């Protein structure tokens, strides 16, 4: 009896020490949950969720301070992915937030007065320019967050929806009830 108790106590101590050591040795910097949430956010950095960027929103979700249905650019797909990750039920999009078609900003260059305000607003440094010089958006880098629009004093920035082309086209979900590839004889 005594031997059993002593053995178990010894084992418990041993494992306790082991776990304690492991926790110190393999300590993970940062917040892994927030990291994982951040990975699922679209990184548009638009602030529509009410947080100054995706990472702060990820932190807020991780800390239980905000719901998972606030990200407009991510839309339903992001809600589902977040619900999946966090083991929750998906919720409908927060009211008053509309999903938007992806787009990029374009500066109408001949109207730009070179005030640099848009550069200061862009969260991903996608705007090039210098004081009193014409500015331009690097299309490749623009996330379509629209943050550069309000500061522009001459309203010369417009959003251009990203067009569907053969490069980003997605096969439609099959619809077997009618022939989606049929061609009427008249068309020939």
């Amino acid at each position, binding site marked *: 009896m005594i031997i059993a108790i002593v053995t178990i106590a010894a084992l418990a101590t041993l494992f306790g020490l082991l776990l304690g050591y492991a926790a110190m040795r393999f300590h993970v910097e940062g917040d892994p949950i927030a990291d994982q949430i951040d990975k699922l956010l679209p990184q548009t950095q638009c602030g529509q969720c009410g947080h100054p960027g995706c990472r702060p929103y990820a932190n807020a979700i991780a800390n239980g301070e905000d719901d998972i249905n606030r990200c407009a650019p991510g839309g339903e797909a992001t809600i589902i992915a977040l619900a999946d990750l966090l083991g929750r039920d998906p919720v409908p999009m927060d009211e008053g937030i509309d999903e938007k078609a992806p787009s990029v900003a374009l500066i109408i260059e001949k109207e730009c007065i070179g005030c640099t305000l848009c550069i200061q607003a862009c969260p991903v440094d996608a705007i090039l320019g210098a004081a009193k010089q014409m500015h331009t958006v690097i299309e490749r*880098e623009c*996330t379509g967050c629209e943050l550069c629009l309000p500061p522009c004093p001459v309203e010369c920035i417009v959003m251009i929806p990203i067009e569907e082309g*053969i490069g980003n*086209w*997605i*096969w439609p979900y099959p619809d077997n009830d009618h022939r989606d590839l049929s061609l009427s004889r008249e*068309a020939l």
Partner: protein
Amino acid sequence: MSATAPLTLGHFHGGIHMPDHKAESTTQPVAAVKIPPQLILPLQQHIGAPAKAVVSAGEHVLKGQLIAAASGRVSAPIHAPTSGVISAIEDHLVPHSSGLSARCIIIDTDGRDEWAELPPPIDDFTSADNAVLIERIRESGIVGLGGATFPSSIKMEARNNSIDTLIINAAECEPYITCDDMLMREQADQIVSGIRIIQHILGAKRCLIGIEDNKPEAIKSMSAAVAAASLQHTDVVTVPTLYPSGGERQLTLLLTGKEVPSHGIPANIGIVCQNVGTVYAIADAVLKGRPLISRIVTITGEGVAQPQNVYSLIGTSAGELVSQAGGYTGKANQLICGGPMMGYSMPTDEVPVTKGVNCLLVASEQDCPPPEPATACIRCGKCAEACPAQLLPQQLYWHSRSRNFDKAQDYHLFDCIECGCCSHVCPSHIQLVHYYRFAKTQIWSKEKEKIKADHARQRHEARVARLERIAAERKARMRKKKAVLKSKKGGGDSAKKAVIAAAVKRAAAKKSAAMAATDSNQSATE
């Protein structure tokens, strides 16, 4: 030496037998098409980055002149198929399953068919440097003409002599399509020259030419050409007619008994596979200096009056080719680019023929009956029996349908070659391949989004870090200034007061001096 006897070494799983409908379009020799008034050349006719136009509207171009340059390693240049004037560079319908438009160079032909100066022929290719030959293939814009349109030069690049077998894919297994058959019947000698060039570049020990046994003329003419050229270690291998024996993996398995690894390419097991039409184009480029500006296209189906094969300039519209083949018959029901199994329907016949288009099937109701309405999967397993890639199509369908893309990938979605065997045998008439294409394009688009998001995150983090650094520097500067002020304050309060008092005194003195000056000015004017 050559052997025409059946010599199948391997066997692939599944596959289906169908009426081949090849006889209709092989009754007459390949016809030359007259130059159409307009050619439409999409900048993207290959897998990889679209080519970049190097001409502008209004410019006159000559036949064979470079009009769009490759933009990267995986890309291919485009040449003018005949002489004429560039009328526009604009969006135009292109042959693509989406039915969408893409950027095209449009040439109004002048009918003179005047050649540009071509690079010199490399007649003695055996003493030419490999790099020179590969560069010639690259700059001639040659891509896989079997339909894959992967830039051919990349397949030729140095692999430290690790390639031991060259496979020439001449199986042409899809019903209705006969362009490779006709090419072999008529141009076997040049194909053999092409094989010698590729053999020389790759240093492969042997070459296997795989042809389905429903093409006896092609087998005969290829065997004769191989014998005449006394090509060493080159065999014409007859494979049984079974769709899809022309799939790269399936043919490799048939001819060598070796499996290409999942997610791998034949080169991983020492094999390079080239379509027979590509081989012909390579010979053209090396021996004549001619870029890829035309190809053989099969025009067939009950909807066209005289089914046949034609030498078509790249960029000729489908409608133009159909009228060359006697025009539409009353039975024309849909215009399919490619064959009945892997092709796609096109919305109009204004779509141009590109490098990868091997067949225009003007199908009647009988050729391609409308699919019957789908019913629920009865789990019969017929699809799995037919799948040449040994997948579980029913599972793939299930997961693609429910948008469970991770699961679909677990079942090797990307090993699916979209051959359509599963859809063909499904008693419930489920258009299985549509689901796979839907799932694949969804996954690609998600991957692209993820790359974009990761990039945006990095840039945002870099920006935040920079702003923080600047703020920290400013703070540090402020602190320094404060510290300097503080150290000056060293003299204590009285010193400070004295300084201030002195300043006030100075200011007052200045002021009174100024007053005096204005006073005297005023009195002077009075």
